[in-house]
């Protein structure tokens, strides 16, 4: 041992070879050092040691060749069996090798100048800024080879303004990260929105170097963001009226912040540890290891790096949450999910997963049970508070009353009841259309609007089934079934879409079934067609026949009970009696509001009453259209029956008892005109029934059989059916302001026909009395007494007057039909144009016109 030391001393200090006293002294000194407790703490981890050596090598020569060589050598060394303390040897070499890089790169070129490179403080190659405590120059070493840094340090020491210790700054920065102002660095004001407001409290004795300032600035950003997020979370905490989505956002933020606290705690303990070890091990050799773990501002920056991004994201969300709400908030966050940065994307996805949970909970209830559970109105379906609690009362009372009325509409309390019914009718459609509203701005964009509509419709249907169709059992069963199918969540959008689709189909199908089977919608539609659109020909004829005498009277002499009684008779006498009683009892006859001078024909109408929930489809608006159609068709029917009766009279009478030979020609003319009228009205009727009503009905039936779409589609289909009929039956044209021109013309034509009919009646009566007079005269001539001879010859101007009227109405009719045909030929609607063709088949009217033109 001692001899070893001696040889060491001799080899390293050549001077000592001659001088024994020096040698002894040095050996003693070395013994002292060796027996001291320097670096006792090192544990034998050769891997760690090798790593640190490699790192050192890489630092000194970045090309990596020495490091590679070292790895090689190390591997070989480890194979060697000789040494028992390889680790110790290595660590010895490392300790020695940790000499200044400058000296290493220029290893003493001239032995004559064999001065070791200027000694430097051990902390010199430590990363980051040098701390004054460690770099305080030791006197005696500065005599030669001063670098500029040394000079500067010296200068600083002289003016007594050293750099502020990094440890102090580090502590402050850790405070800053928690949003607390430190001793040397402070936030100007917590409330200040400007993140750059960071003040460095200038200590006259210390300097904070500019790079360090910038570094602290960067770090302080995280602290600032933290303050914002934290204040947001705290602000929402315990406040009432915060939406559930916001609450879950707060929860997520809070858990993120907890993570953040954990990091801060780790950093703080590390700082404390490194400070502690610094106090104890002031020995230079201890620094090497400590350097690996010690916390510095730059290391802090690296540690915080990820959190800076995270904090930024959180802060953005917080900013957005201030003015967005519910679904819009989800939407806002989702906007960040489309980011190329995987970190941002992942963070956003996580956040969305959390935040959208309440949304999906609401969605689930809405989609599978039709309940809107949304206390903070965050869902994209909004309920109308006025309609929210309005539930359908199944009209058992009304139904009972109707039934007890013996099949037909209530006789008593006519005014009040009809008002009631119209009020309820409003409700059906209003409830369906108005109870829930779709709010597009609240729809999360990852759902998509088409799906949003589907979701909306599904929930609405379920709700409707439950509350308006009294079928909550089914909904409850469905709900139970759906619960087994897994939950909805953000990460499974495809599954979500699938469940939406199935739920939509099931709900719509069910609603259709309920409407068609439970409530017999199709029966009602058919009944409307049969009765109000005069599909039952025999019924219409019967009704016409029995009502005709009544209806010619002024409207104010008609009584509703008479009408309903007649209606009942008509039903009994026609095939309508075989219709289900539920349909028949809804039929009612009543008068529209009339003004002075109107007769029964103008005000009479049939009515068909529907109740909930059918009135969702057959709403009051639709009923008005049905009445309009009925009115028109009824008029046509009336004209037709008037004409057919007139024809029977004219044709039959003329052959049998109207023997006034000089008027035969006039009768012929009358028959020609009447035939023309009958042709017109028959074509009109055929057009209405066959081409319009039946065709529309077929389309509607096809839709009903397909059972596609939801209730909205059904309502829409029915509406289209009705609109189509109204438009075509009433010959409405598309031209604005002139929609009803043709209709008016047709109505005028009807009046003309009736007037003509009246004139022919007069003519008929005249002929009748004339022939009777002549018969009497002839009898008298033959000497048979048949009664007192009336030789009151009708006044001579009666006949010309009647004939004039007949001719006038006949020609007026002809002109008007021509005008109508002309109008129809240019009609926008193809069916109406065909009606024109039918009316003027073989160009009857055209040739007439041309004749008239050529004659003129």
């Amino acid at each position: 041992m001692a001899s070893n030391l001696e040889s060491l001393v001799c080899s390293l200090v050549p001077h000592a070879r001659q001088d024994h006293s020096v040698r002894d002294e040095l050996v003693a000194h070395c013994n002292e050092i060796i027996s001291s407790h320097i670096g006792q703490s090192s544990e034998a981890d050769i891997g760690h040691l090798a790593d640190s050596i490699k790192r050192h090598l890489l630092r000194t020569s970045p090309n990596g060749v020495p490091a590679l060589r070292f790895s090689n050598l190390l591997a070989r060394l480890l194979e060697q069996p000789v040494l028992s303390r390889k680790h110790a040897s290595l660590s010895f070499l490392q300790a020695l090798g940790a000499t200044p890089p400058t000296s290493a790169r220029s290893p003493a070129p001239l032995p004559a100048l064999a001065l070791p490179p200027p000694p430097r403080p051990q902390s010199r190659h430590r990363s980051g800024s040098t701390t004054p405590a460690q770099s305080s120059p030791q006197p005696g070493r500065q005599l030669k080879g001063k670098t500029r840094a040394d000079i500067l340090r010296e200068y600083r020491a002289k003016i007594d303004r050293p750099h502020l210790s990094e440890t102090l700054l580090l502590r402050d920065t850790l405070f800053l990260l928690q949003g607390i102002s430190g001793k040397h660095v402070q936030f100007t004001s917590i409330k200040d929105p400007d993140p750059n407001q960071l003040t460095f409290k200038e200590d006259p004795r210390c300097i904070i170097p500019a790079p360090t300032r910038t570094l602290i600035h960067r770090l302080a950003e995280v602290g600032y963001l933290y303050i914002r997020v934290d204040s947001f979370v705290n602000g929402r905490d315990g406040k009432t009226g915060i939406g559930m989505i916001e609450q879950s956002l707060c929860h997520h933020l809070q858990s993120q912040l907890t993570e953040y606290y954990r990091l801060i705690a780790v950093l703080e303990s590390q700082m404390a540890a490194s400070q502690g070890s610094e106090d104890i091990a002031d020995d230079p050799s201890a620094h090497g290891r400590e350097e690996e773990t010690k916390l510095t501002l730059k290391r802090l920056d690296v540690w915080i790096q990820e959190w800076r991004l995270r904090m930024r994201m959180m802060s953005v969300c917080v900013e957005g949450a201030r003015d967005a709400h519910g679904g819009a908030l989800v939407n806002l966050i989702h906007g960040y999910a489309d980011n190329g940065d995987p970190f941002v994307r992942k963070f956003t996805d996580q956040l969305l997963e959390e935040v959208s949970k309440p949304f999906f909970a609401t969605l689930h209830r809405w989609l599978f049970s039709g309940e809107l559970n949304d206390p903070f109105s965050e869902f994209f379906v909004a309920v109308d508070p006025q309609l929210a609690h309005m539930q359908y009362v199944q009209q058992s009372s009304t139904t009972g009353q109707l039934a007890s009325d013996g099949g037909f509409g209530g006789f008593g309390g006519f005014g009040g009841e009809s008002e009631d019914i119209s009020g309820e009718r409003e409700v059906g459609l209003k409830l369906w259309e108005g109870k829930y509203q779709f709010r597009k701005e609240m729809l999360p964009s990852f759902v998509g609007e088409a799906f949003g509509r589907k979701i909306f419709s599904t929930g609405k249907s379920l709700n409707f089934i439950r509350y308006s169709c009294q079928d909550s059992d089914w909904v409850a069963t469905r709900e139970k079934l759906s619960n087994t199918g897994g939950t909805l969540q953000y990460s499974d959008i495809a599954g979500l879409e699938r469940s939406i689709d199935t739920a939509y189909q099931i709900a719509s199908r069910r609603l259709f079934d309920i409407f068609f089977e439970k409530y017999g919608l199709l029966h009602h539609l058919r009944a409307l067609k049969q009765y109000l659109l005069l599909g039952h020909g025999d019924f219409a004829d019967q009704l016409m026949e029995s009502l005709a005498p009544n209806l010619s009277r002024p409207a104010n002499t008609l009584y509703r009970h008479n009408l309903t009684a007649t209606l009942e008779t008509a039903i009994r006498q026609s095939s309508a009696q075989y219709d289900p009683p539920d349909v028949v009892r809804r039929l009612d006859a009543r008068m529209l509001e009339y003004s002075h001078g109107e007769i029964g024909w103008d005000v009479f109408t049939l009515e068909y009453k529907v109740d909930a929930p059918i009135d969702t489809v057959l709403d009051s608006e639709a009923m008005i259209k049905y009445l309009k159609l009925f009115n028109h068709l009824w008029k046509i029917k009336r004209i037709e029956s008037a004409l057919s009766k007139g024809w029977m009279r004219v044709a039959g009478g003329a052959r049998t008892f109207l023997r006034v030979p000089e008027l035969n020609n006039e009768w012929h003319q009358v028959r020609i005109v009447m035939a023309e009228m009958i042709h017109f009205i028959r074509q009109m009727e055929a057009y209405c029934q066959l081409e319009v009503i039946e065709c529309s009905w077929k389309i509607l039936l096809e839709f009903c059989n397909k059972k596609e779409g939801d209730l909205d589609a059904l309502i829409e289909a029915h509406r289209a059916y009705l609109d189509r009929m109204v438009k075509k039956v009433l010959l409405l044209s598309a031209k604005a302001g002139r929609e009803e021109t043709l209709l008016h013309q047709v109505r005028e034509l009807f009046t003309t026909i009736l007037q003509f009919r009246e004139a022919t009646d007069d003519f008929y009566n005249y002929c009748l009395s004339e022939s009777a007079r002549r018969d009497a005269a002839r009898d008298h001539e033959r000497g048979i007494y048949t009664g007192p001879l009336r030789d009151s010859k009708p006044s001579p101007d009666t006949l010309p007057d009647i004939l004039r009227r007949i001719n006038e109405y006949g020609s007026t009719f002809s002109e008007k039909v021509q005008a109508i045909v002309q109008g129809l030929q240019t009609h926008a609607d193809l069916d109406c144009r065909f009606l024109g063709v039918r009316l003027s088949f073989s160009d009857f009217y055209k040739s007439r016109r041309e004749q008239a033109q050529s004659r003129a």
Partner: protein
Amino acid sequence: MSSRETDRMSSAQQTLDILYEISQLLHTQLDKETLATCVSMIENGVNPEALAGVIQELRRENTRIPEQSNVNGQ
């Protein structure tokens, strides 16, 4: 000298060579002889870091002595 002894010698020599190369890589500026001395000392249980301290101390001493002699000589 048995063959085992020769083996031991040669492997010791190899080990020393490797260590010397490492020391050169690390720029310890030790010559082979000193290195051998140091390694044997470490094998005998001397604390390596303390030994490194000794080497440095001696080097410093070595530089100081000529200085002193220079000063003395002036």
